[in-house]
């Protein structure tokens, strides 16, 4: 069978020029309107060049209204249409919005909770804690929420996000204050979300899902910047934190699918000129662009409520195991699959742009008005989760990121091996055993799921953190190591 994909042939022609230790550039060729900037180390570059990722990053530079440069993060890899780990900003008037630049899992993201506990207090009870969380939080394919919401209530969730959770007693004021967008995008409109999407989402609110999604009990292993760490509530090494990684479940996937189809049906002339069908976009200012942004915002609100409900149950489990008085605070919650209307300085002028982050984290620096008041002096926390069993990092936004990457940083380790290859290489029971030898306990819905998510299938998170800090698009605050993991 012949492979009719023309992209792989073109890729060999692309030249990457080294700018400095952590930055590479591809100058515009063909229809590219701007260059492609890649943040990567020499060590990580060969892996990035293995597949189609670079060509995908270059394809983004062809889209109308793109500003300054198409960007790829150190954890970037081949996606569909846009690469995963890609960032692009489009002129708010003359640009476009592309569902493929956000991804199917709208507002996939990470939330970090603090606990008052230390490592030695958790150790004897870690299995009990995992059992309790596994009971309280539905995980895996087909798992359904214990919460039954009416259609009107689902619309309220889509329109108001975590404000709904606050009204219903599932959230605290601090949870909202320490969440990107306060957990509620005002641009959301439930009536722009299809009934199909609502049908998928209704049963899944407050569920973890499967794949790379997880809940992790971690201890603070190293503090790089004690002053900033203290501002984030990370006051000593050994403190226990909880990280939640999931998104908007089937609802978000359906929103992306629906609008991708609507755009290609309504805009066939745009489709014809694109190198990849998944790059389909709607020109900003059109009704279709507005409808998609409203639906995407609603799905994002759903994602925040989803992580909020999981946090609610995590708190319940800690109370079950450690007594009712224990309180878990909220460090931050950040989306890494989303488009946002933001103001950025471009060629010396402030300009409104739609920043697409597909597998990239927003990272505002010190003083930015959208950083929660408690953190504004130091900058926004960046949550960089590792793969199962490896470290995670907390960083803080920098002025350099504002200037270079539209205030964006990486979102995680980034996959290096396909699930299919992982299943051939690893056995779930062996991965679990190896992790237990390293004192990391895992509770999962499926053994095969563990094999597919084995630490060895991801890029090295330490390398991603090194590039982020080295390129100064984020500043290291702390490193965390896992003690217990819940997987779908």
């Amino acid at each position: 069978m012949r492979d009719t994909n023309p992209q792989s042939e073109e890729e060999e022609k692309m030249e990457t020029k080294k700018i400095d230790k952590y930055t590479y550039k591809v100058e515009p060729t063909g229809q590219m309107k701007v260059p492609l900037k890649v943040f990567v180390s020499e060590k990580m570059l060969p892996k990035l060049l293995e597949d189609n990722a670079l060509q995908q990053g270059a394809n983004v530079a062809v889209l109308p209204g793109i500003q300054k440069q198409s960007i790829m993060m150190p954890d970037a890899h081949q996606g569909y249409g846009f690469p995963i780990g890609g960032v692009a900003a489009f002129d708010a008037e003359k640009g476009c919005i592309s569902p493929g630049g956000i991804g199917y899992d709208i507002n996939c993201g990470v939330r970090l909770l603090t606990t008052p506990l230390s490592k030695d207090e958790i150790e004897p009870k870690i299995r009990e804690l995992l059992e309790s969380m596994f009971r309280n939080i539905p995980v895996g394919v087909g798992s359904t929420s214990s919460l039954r919401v009416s259609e009107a209530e689902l619309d309220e969730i889509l329109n108001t996000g975590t404000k709904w959770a606050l009204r219903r007693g599932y959230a605290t004021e601090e949870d909202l204050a320490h969440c990107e967008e306060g957990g509620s995008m005002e641009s959301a409109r439930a009536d722009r979300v299809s009934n199909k999407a609502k049908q998928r989402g209704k049963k899944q609110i407050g569920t973890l899902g499967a794949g790379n999604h997880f809940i992790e009990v971690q201890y603070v292993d190293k503090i790089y910047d004690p002053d900033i760490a203290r501002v984030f509530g990370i006051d000593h090494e050994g403190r226990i934190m909880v990280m939640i990684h999931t998104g908007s479940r089937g609802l978000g996937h359906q929103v992306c699918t629906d609008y991708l189809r609507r755009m290609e049906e309504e805009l066939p002339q745009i489709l014809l000129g694109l190198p990849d069908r998944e790059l389909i976009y709607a020109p900003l200012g059109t009704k279709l662009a507005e409808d998609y942004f409203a639906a995407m915002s609603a799905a994002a609100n759903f994602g925040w409520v989803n992580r909020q409900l999981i946090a609610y149950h995590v708190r319940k489990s800690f109370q079950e195991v450690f007594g009712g008085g224990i309180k878990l605070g909220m460090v931050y919650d950040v989306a890494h699959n989303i488009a946002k209307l933001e103001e950025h300085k471009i060629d010396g002028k402030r300009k409104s742009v739609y920043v697409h982050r597909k597998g990239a984290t927003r990272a505002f620096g010190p003083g930015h008005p959208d950083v929660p008041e408690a953190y504004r002096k130091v900058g926004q926390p960046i949550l960089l989760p590792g793969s199962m069993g490896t470290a995670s990092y907390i960083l803080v936004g920098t002025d350099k990121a504002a200037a270079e990457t539209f205030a964006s940083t990486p979102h995680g380790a980034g996959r290096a091996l396909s699930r299919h290859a992982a299943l051939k290489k690893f056995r779930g029971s062996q991965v679990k055993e190896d992790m237990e030898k390293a004192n990391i306990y895992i509770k999962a819905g499926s053994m095969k799921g563990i094999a597919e998510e084995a630490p060895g299938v991801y890029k090295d998170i330490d390398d991603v953190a090194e590039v982020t800090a080295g390129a100064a698009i984020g500043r290291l605050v702390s490193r965390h190591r896992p003690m217990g993991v819940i997987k779908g």
Partner: protein
Amino acid sequence: MPQKRYEYLPHTADAKFRAYGQTLEEAFGNAALAIFNLLVDTEKVESRLEHKVSLTARGKESLLFDFLSELLFLIDAENFLLAGVDKVSISEESSSFKLEATLLGDNLTGYDIHGQVKAVTYHEMVISEDENGWALQVVVDV
């Protein structure tokens, strides 16, 4: 000699497969199996439930995209796991393609399901026909 129904191909982040068939209908049915085998051993799924799917799309690619997307919808909305595709018919009408299919399967409760398939993509989608029959190449977001 019966050819292989589908095969998985390397793709870093997502899952990529090629489904084959003597006819386009057979290849569509095998693509459905390829998606569900990412989640579960479909040979172990019993045929207790029936779902009918009826779709119209402008091109064969869109028809495949919509058909496979519908299967993912059924997992979430109806807790449906596919055991097999009983009947598929595809007809070309004036400016579109029409698909009717009968799916057989079971409620997902109690099955060993792993991983997840978030969505179907057009990325590297190729529908081709040669003397051996049809081949459908699909990448799904997992």
